[in-house]
């Protein structure tokens, strides 16, 4: 079920497009679902499809085409570290390896406590800030030296401690 608050956010996106082109809002609606639920489930896709008057498969095509949609649950914090060439030249791969050691997981995995999912990503569009990492699709963290990565992980753990 889509809450009233979520429907209001959907409506704001739909209003940008011509009345007969509601489908244009699908990317934004899926991003909202992901922000609120952590990932886009088949039920989430169905909710968006119903709201926009699309076939569920057409929504699924979008979810599966774009890299940032989580098709299964991820940790509380999804850490996407860019390792593309400009970042590779400035320790992007090193940042990813540092996080693998720090978190005790490999890329693509989630920590046992469910706090962190670590992923390698393609160009985030912040090349001059390398090493860069995008957290939960919304916050770009720049100049992530090993010390700053440690600080970030430790502070997030503290913030989430029961």
């Amino acid at each position, binding site marked *: 079920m889509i809450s009233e608050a979520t429907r209001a956010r959907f409506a704001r996106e739909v209003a940008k497009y011509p009345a007969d082109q509601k489908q244009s809002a699908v990317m934004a609606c899926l991003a909202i679902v992901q922000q609120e639920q952590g990932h886009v489930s088949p039920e989430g896709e169905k909710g968006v499809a119903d709201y926009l008057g699309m076939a569920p498969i057409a929504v699924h095509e979008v979810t599966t085409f774009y890299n940032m949609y989580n098709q299964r649950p991820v940790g509380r914090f999804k850490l996407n570290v860019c390792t593309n060439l400009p970042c590779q030249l400035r320790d992007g791969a090193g940042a990813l390896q540092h996080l693998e050691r720090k978190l005790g997981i490999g890329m693509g995995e989630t920590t046992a406590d469910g706090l962190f999912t670590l992923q390698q990503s393609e160009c985030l*569009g912040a090349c001059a800030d390398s090493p860069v990492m995008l957290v939960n699709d919304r916050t770009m963290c720049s100049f992530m030296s090993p010390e700053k990565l440690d600080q970030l992980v430790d502070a997030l753990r503290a913030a989430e401690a029961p």
Partner: protein
Amino acid sequence: MMTADQVLAQFRATGVETCFHDRHINPQIYAGLNGSNWRLKDYVARGGYEALRRILLGADGAEPMTQDQVIATVKESGLRGRGGAGFPTGLKWSFMPRQFPGQKYLVCNSDEGEPGTCKDRDILQFNPHIVIEGMAIAAFAMGISVGYNYIHGEIFSAYERFEEAIDEARAAGLLGDGILGSKFSFQLHAAHGFGAYICGEETALLESLEGKKGQPRFKPPFPASFGLYGKPTTINNTETFAAVPWIIRNGGAAYLACGKPNNGGTKIYSVSGDVERPGNYEVPLGTPFPKLLELAGGVRGGRKLKAVIPGGSSAPILPASIMMECTMDYDSIAKSGSMLGSGAVIVLDDSRCMVKSLQRLSYFYMHESCGQCTPCREGTGWLSRMVDRIENGQGRPSDMDLLNSVADNIQGRTICALGDAAAMPVRAMIKHFRPEFEYHVEHKTCMVPAYV
């Protein structure tokens, strides 16, 4: 105790390193920015929206401008598309069927995903109104009433910032119905991607804006006749729109004079890789490459320059000796066998292994191929696997010729330019650094000490 959001906020970029370093030369787009003066009142204080006002209402005793006058001014300026292709902007605008009776659309391509490029992010983040004004002027010139700015999903804060700026402009009567009391109306909205390099290709972007997979369309028909929702559409890059207000305020001839013939104005270069000060540098087109390198603090650690990818990862790599002779403009870089592209300058020092560098790029193109055309879908994977095996000591002496042959069979045989973008780095790497590839095959290791 800090919340998670407060923790994350501490690690956000401030723009000091990349944009407010005061190492631009005669900047127009980045001039006077400090990170906190992005709002409407600040932009107006910098002379913002004067150009739109002059066009719609006239100024200094001059009459309002006509659509033809605006397009003629942009043509005279020599402004060329800043997204990669370098197509003359005024000419593109003149292709728009202005008399077409139905809906027409204006689209800004802010899907900045070409590896090495982060200039549009700093424009949207720190000077969003310059893009809004540029788009409003373009919309007026082409008789368009609705526009969208499609913003790279990964720079979500830039999307949110742009939405806020749109709200400000709308509230001030600079967007919407009857702008500044004139008869001109223009509705502008922001849209975002969500992680697909291919959507930087203009027709893939249109598909994405229609709520579909971002798979490029066959051209022709070009967007000017069949664009968004099948309607005539003009698409320009963020930096292109951002250049327009200055041109209107100062005239086409003045803009052209800022650069060099056929290469008018300033250009923002995103310098990344092995330099002391990676960042965005706005300089006149035609600035010598050594000057740009100097602005970026020179090669990191005082090392020797080995090679430069001058226009984003898709541009053919150039060895230092050629690059140091280039000026940074469309024609000089093209003459040297590469392209200015998006203006992303990726610098590699003499410690870098070219096989390993190409390995990461080839993986990227395989990952981002949309899968629509067979030569690209299959060929990018083939290229990636071959570079992988050379890097990992399993290369064969025939691999370099085979790489060239696969690249040849991708290039020019696909619907969009991603195939070319995957092929060109491979061909240029082998052209300029073949001995390094041969050394890898023979000795199963790099010519240079291990990197990363």
